[in-house]
């Protein structure tokens, strides 16, 4: 089947072609960067989750944490 290449975006194909171990390693690298930028380990608020509790405090955004200085803030 030639099809997959014409249907799926190249960056996805590249990701699919990695072995599970390679994907795990890539994911670990992403984690290190995420944590270095002050990323939270709390899950993002998900109002569609059956376990969502609006009264549970949310994680502080990374740009609101001590040690992270925002040099330029984008608009919305």
């Amino acid at each position, binding site marked *: *089947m030639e*099809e*997959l290449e*014409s*249907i*799926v975006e190249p960056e*996805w*194909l590249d*990701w*699919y*072609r*990695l072995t*599970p*171990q390679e*994907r*795990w390693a890539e*994911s670990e690298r*992403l984690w290190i960067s*995420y944590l270095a930028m002050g990323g*939270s*380990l*709390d*899950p*993002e608020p*998900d109002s*569609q*989750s*059956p*376990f969502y*509790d609006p*009264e*549970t405090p949310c994680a502080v955004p990374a740009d609101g944490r001590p040690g992270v200085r925002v040099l330029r803030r984008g608009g919305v």
Partner: protein
Amino acid sequence: MGGQACVFYGAAEFSRDTDLMILADAANLERLQEALDELQAVRIAVPPFEARWLERGLSVHFRCSTGEAAGMRLDVMSKMRGVAPFPDLWSRRTVLEIAGTEIDVLSIADLVRAKKTQRDKDWPMLSRLLEADFAARRSLDPDGARVEFWLRELRTPALLIQLAAKHPELTRRVVTFRPLLSLALAGDEIGLRKALRNEEDAEREADRVYWEPLKRELERLRGAERAQK
């Protein structure tokens, strides 16, 4: 069985917690409690860590507070809507080796079933998981069972049409279980896209209905815990 399993199988998810599917028997819960104690894991939400809640289909949520695991979230569950009981899941699990450690992961077919939830974020993940499986195995002369799995589960219209064209007899047999495959046989991509959307909507609605009484139970448990504090 959550985001990490998706990464193993080829989807890309940045998951901030670890989801564990367990057998909720007394001996196993005791072993798990010992492991949680080692990680200094604290339960951070209802329900309590008891077999009866796990057996009802509720997850128990923990946060670890020691060593490299500090801050990590752990969610534990033992039953999911539309997914086989634990012994079946265990018997067909995938075992991967990462850095010398063996990791037991839900089979791709079970993971796909588990991801059919009411949440927006799970549906693109499903498409990716199935495309990744297709990409990995299409050149390996897949057997009938694998092709049937794709016919039953793939969510990419163009791939379904191509698969149906290549395996028309099998597709006609599977139409009984997945009627939208008749559109794949007819090469009707627009119709197929719409039918896939309807299929998704029906699954999401079924998941909402399944969770309605459980959400009420969670609300009751939250109220009781807050009243105690």
